[in-house]
């Protein structure tokens, strides 16, 4: 992992600085997470009266279930699409906003505002807009000759959740890209221009490397978002259907645990999910971060 060349010599101070966050993390995250982790080895009734220790039975059953294995595939497609689309579109919009700096405030307020709509409500809006009977987008699609029915067509359903999830993240990514682009010194750009580089070339050779720390941050965060924070969107629009075609891993965790009250299986699934994302993130830190220029 990257570190600074020179550091401060204090021995005690860092512990003090980090203590509040570690404390909150241990009490309100690690301890409950350990409980949940422990539950993945149990088979319990909902209220917790009867507890059987079942070793890895929960895990074994998951991997023996073809629907669960399919969910991996759906999640992969979903996460990649959402990350790539929302990052690319946001970068494009942020670069465009930088170009028209004087009027950019209006654009950026309008582009960030959708992030303020609560996720649960956003799900309802997407349901409205794509509803095959009364949805305005469904109507427009029909007018263009596209027959849209995400209740039966799995591809339509996946398209819907990708659009809904990407939409929310565009605002988030745009915000951070804009902040990062703002902090690229003009002098460097001017130097590039003097050397004869056009704006597009300047962007890729000067600006993009300079915002790579932010880009790296956003890619990691976007993948985490796509894999963990999107169950609400699926719940409001497709409920994992049709026939589990849009059941991403985190939705299954929610459905089995929160709604189905099978806490053991839900915990096992979360552990698996966590292991995947930790591994993914570790890979990113190891292999991608070395290309980030600090």
């Amino acid at each position, binding site marked *: 992992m990257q570190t600074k060349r020179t550091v*401060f010599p204090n021995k005690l101070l860092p512990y003090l600085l980090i203590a509040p966050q570690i404390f909150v993390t241990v009490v309100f995250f690690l301890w409950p997470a350990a409980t949940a982790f422990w539950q993945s080895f149990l088979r319990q009734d909902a209220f917790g009266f009867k507890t059987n220790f079942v070793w890895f039975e929960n895990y074994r059953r998951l991997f023996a279930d073809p629907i669960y294995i399919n969910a991996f595939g759906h999640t992969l497609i979903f996460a990649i699409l959402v990350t790539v689309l929302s990052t690319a579109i946001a970068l494009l919009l942020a670069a*465009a906003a*930088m170009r028209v700096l004087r009027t950019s405030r209006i654009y950026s307020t309008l582009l960030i505002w959708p992030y*303020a709509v609560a996720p649960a409500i956003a799900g309802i809006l997407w349901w409205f807009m794509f509803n095959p009977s009364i949805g305005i987008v469904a109507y427009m699609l029909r007018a263009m000759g596209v027959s849209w029915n995400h209740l039966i067509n799995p591809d339509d359903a996946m398209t819907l959740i990708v659009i809904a999830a990407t939409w929310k993240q565009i605002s988030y990514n745009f915000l951070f890209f804009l902040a990062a682009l703002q902090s690229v010194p003009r002098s460097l750009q001017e130097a590039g221009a003097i050397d004869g580089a056009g704006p597009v070339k300047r962007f890729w050779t000067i600006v993009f490397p300079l915002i790579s720390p932010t880009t790296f*941050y956003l890619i990691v965060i976007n993948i985490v978002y796509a894999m963990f924070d999107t169950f609400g969107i699926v719940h409001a629009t497709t409920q994992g259907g049709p026939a589990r075609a849009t059941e991403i891993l985190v939705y299954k965790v929610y459905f089995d645990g929160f709604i189905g009250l099978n806490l053991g299986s839900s915990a096992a699934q979360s552990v698996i999910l*966590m292991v995947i994302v930790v591994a993914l993130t570790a890979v990113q830190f190891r292999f991608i971060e070395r290309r980030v220029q600090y």
Partner: protein
Amino acid sequence: MVENRPFLNFLAHLVLILGVTIVVFPVYVAFIASSHGPNDFLSGVVPLTPGSHIIENYSTMLSSGMTSSGAPPIGPMMINSLIMAVGVAVGKIAISILSAFAIVYFRFPFRTLAFWMIFITLMLPVEVRIVPTYKVVADLGMLNNYGGLIIPLIASATATFLFRQFFLTVPDELMEAARVDGAGPMKFFRDILLPLSITNIAALFIILFVLGWNQYLWPLIITTDQSFYTVVMGIQRMAAVADAEPRWNLVMAAVILAALPPVLVIVAMQRLFVKGLVETEK
């Protein structure tokens, strides 16, 4: 930008307008929905033009609208949401910036472990942790108070990660110069690092404010006292009705009203962006 390329400017505007249209469209639909009568929504394709009930719907929501579905009036709910939003934003930024500073600028045993421990908080879905976290909060006697509402939410790592990224880009010369001047780490932090971080703090404040503002599930689970209702809880209470049809026009009016304070925050924080670091030469 640097030189004047009108075609690229035009293209940029075009891209932006297209982007804004697509991104703002759902919010526009919500606004349209809030301006129509109660049954205009489910009985045909949603119209794209505003209706005539704007004043009526919004004044209903501002006065008794929420209470007709059993929730408290919208004013107190907005205040609760505000407390949560500011509490979460300030809390997270404060503890994260200190942690990131420690992780980047010091070397100490367990440094990497600490970073990953903090980072891992992103990776367990809240729905899984919610039942055990509820138990922890209940055992600590923090149900039905603001501490229980806010503190468990500030455990997350996005802010720490972001600050870490930013601090790694700060040139070492600044720090070395400070040490040469005899400044200790906290002085360096206060006088040099913090001002440089304003843009990131502003961006994070927007994100975290919205996060706290939109809290729904956690307050729902840990409070039984209606005086802690947040505005999104009120909206959900109006929208999630079993066996009945919600009054969508009022729900959407509430949604738009609820989204306004975050917009104000966005507008305010933007000043810090644009003003921010364009002048600072690094």
